């Protein structure tokens, strides 16, 4: 037993070392690009590295990003662990944001239960939206990648329409009225974006970990993920588990939606509020190897880099677009040290073949 534990640590150290090596290489590439494009490269590069730490506010932005990246990373990890490749977190975020807004702006909003009610409404909406592709797959065998991608587009358009027409604060705007103050997440640190959302994200990490590794549902889910045929053989209702995993992941996505609109960043519902953050959860989940406890750690590093790059774009003469190039190269290099996830996705698209000993549980 102790030997497996020490093996675990060895594996963790090896992976961390690999990721860090890649990171250093990536930063080197970033420096070269900065060297070419910036008039004061050292300063610019310094901004990339230290940007997020320059003030309480920027630290707040970073941590707020981490909370959100953690949520989307968790949502993807959960479905990936069940070997479902639903890409629907984005749609769930929009539906979650929408329903949390509907409750916050309803008569319930200003009451004492306004905030939790709005959060729960968001989670419920996200769960429903996660349920649809899951159910369609279980009952009809409809490919969840396609259906969830399409549902994303529909959710984005639906929210745009509702915000623009029926829910709009004043004609011609692209947002609803501000939510009642009591529905907005309180800040944890004054004058930063760090708010209740961070706590919700950390609770979600703990709950997801617990559900996956300490409940029978979680074990069933992982067994379905490891080998669905075996799960059926063992008497596990694989379809039920699959649908419930996608629904639970949807609830996480919906919660992220509520965190967006009820958080310090907005406090209202507006069009395209998610800014394509949801998809970055795929990167987080894959690098974290779908393990809930690793998700916030990866989010912390990735969020720092993301924030540093954005601040570099704002403060220096390196155009914002170059940052995308740096980000892309970093992802490529870090990815080159992780041989996981995609293979599973492919295996999923191909006729079932027994997997060999790939990544063990956390």
């Amino acid at each position: 037993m102790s030997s497996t534990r020490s093996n675990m640590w060895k594996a963790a150290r090896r992976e961390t070392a690999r990721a860090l090596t890649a990171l250093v290489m990536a930063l080197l590439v970033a420096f070269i690009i900065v060297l070419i494009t910036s008039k004061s490269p050292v300063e610019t590069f310094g901004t990339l590295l230290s940007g997020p730490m320059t003030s309480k506010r920027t630290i707040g932005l970073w941590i707020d990003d981490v909370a959100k990246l953690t949520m989307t990373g968790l949502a993807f990890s959960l479905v990936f662990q069940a070997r479902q490749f639903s890409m629907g977190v984005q749609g769930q975020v929009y539906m979650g944001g929408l329903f949390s807004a509907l409750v916050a702006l309803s008569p319930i909003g200003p009451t004492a239960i306004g905030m939790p009610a709005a959060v729960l409404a968001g989670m419920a909406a996200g769960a429903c939206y996660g349920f649809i592709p899951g159910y369609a797959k279980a009952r009809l065998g409809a490919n969840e990648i396609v259906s969830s991608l399409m549902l994303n587009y529909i959710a984005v358009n639906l929210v745009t329409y509702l915000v623009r027409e029926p829910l709009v604060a004043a004609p011609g705007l692209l947002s609803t009225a501000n939510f009642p103050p009591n529905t907005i997440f309180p800040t944890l640190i004054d004058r930063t974006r760090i708010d209740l959302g961070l706590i919700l994200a950390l609770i979600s990490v703990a709950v997801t970990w617990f559900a996956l590794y300490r409940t029978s549902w979680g074990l069933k889910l992982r067994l379905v993920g490891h080998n669905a045929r075996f799960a059926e053989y063992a008497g596990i209702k694989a379809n039920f588990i699959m649908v419930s995993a996608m629904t639970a992941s949807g609830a996480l996505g919906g919660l992220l939606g509520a965190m967006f609109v009820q958080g310090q960043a907005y406090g209202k519902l507006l069009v395209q509020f998610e800014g394509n953050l949801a998809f970055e959860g795929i990167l987080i989940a894959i690098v974290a190897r779908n393990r809930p406890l690793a998700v916030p750690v990866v989010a912390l590093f990735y969020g720092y880099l993301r924030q540093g790059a954005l601040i570099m774009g704002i403060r220096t003469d390196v155009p914002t677009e170059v940052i995308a190039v740096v980000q892309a190269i970093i992802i490529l290099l870090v990815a080159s040290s992780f041989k996981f996830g995609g293979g599973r996705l492919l295996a999923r698209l191909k006729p079932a073949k027994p997997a060999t000993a790939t990544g063990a549980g956390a």
Partner: protein
Amino acid sequence: SAAEYTKDKPLKVALVLHGALGDKSFFDSAAAGMKLAEDKLPVKVKIIEAGYQKDRWEPALADAADGGYDVIIAGTFEMTSYVAKMAKDYSDKKFIIFDDAPDYKTGCCANVLGIQYLTSTAGYLAGYASAKVSKTGTVGEILGMEFKTVTDFAVGFDQGAKAAKPDVKILKATANTFSDPAKGKELALAQLGQGADVIFPIAGSTGIGALQAVRDAKKLAVGVDSDQATIFAPTDAAQADVIFTSVEKKVGQSLYTALEQTIAGKAPYGTALLLGLKEGAVGISKNKYYEKAVPADVRAEIDGLEKKIVAGEITVNTTMK
């Protein structure tokens, strides 16, 4: 006071764009105003492109507020609430929001200058001219998205077109995106197919696609925000040829004026300016293309209408009030 700012010790200005330069209309116009200000006034400008991600806009604004600038400029209703919030936190700094204004009634924004444009007044003239030059009696509008600064162009355009020809047929399409030129082109082709021979795209890059469809069909188009014929003229004469006028929203000019007044200590911070034809902040381009496409008598009528609007004799509908 005015004496404070010199070339060596300039007024430090940050322009925060919730997008990026290169849109050939709105942001570029604001940036042009900044360039003019740097040339002519004791002003040093930093343009910050915050990109298209909504949750980055407030941080970029805050970063500018933290960054030692005297005046911070941002545009459109999408930024207003952030500017209002920031104005409270940084009461020693000045803020200018163009194309929208905060709600001063809440008493929030003594250090914020709002600049709004009555584009409908210029839209009216363009609509009038379009209906007159249309041979088919059908004109088209292509909107990027339906929000008030966009629809304001359209309501004025509609009213003007109907004033010229009560039975004019107006086609309307919304692309739902400002960044899909292929889609804009398709929408314009569809409207051309339905008989429109003048098209007014109000849709950013999507609209640029629409202009191309008009160019290929050799019909007419109305440009938006800047004098788009002049922008196209050096590289694409055929394109410039069909843009017989543009509804100009002179963002750069009005920002220049606002900075000039700020230096002179005369800018009315704490209020909103609603600028239209009268103030010269909007207008239609009257260039050689205009003269070629619009008969002299119609041009005279339009000049007359312009005077009446300025004098308040014609009330133009608007979504801005």
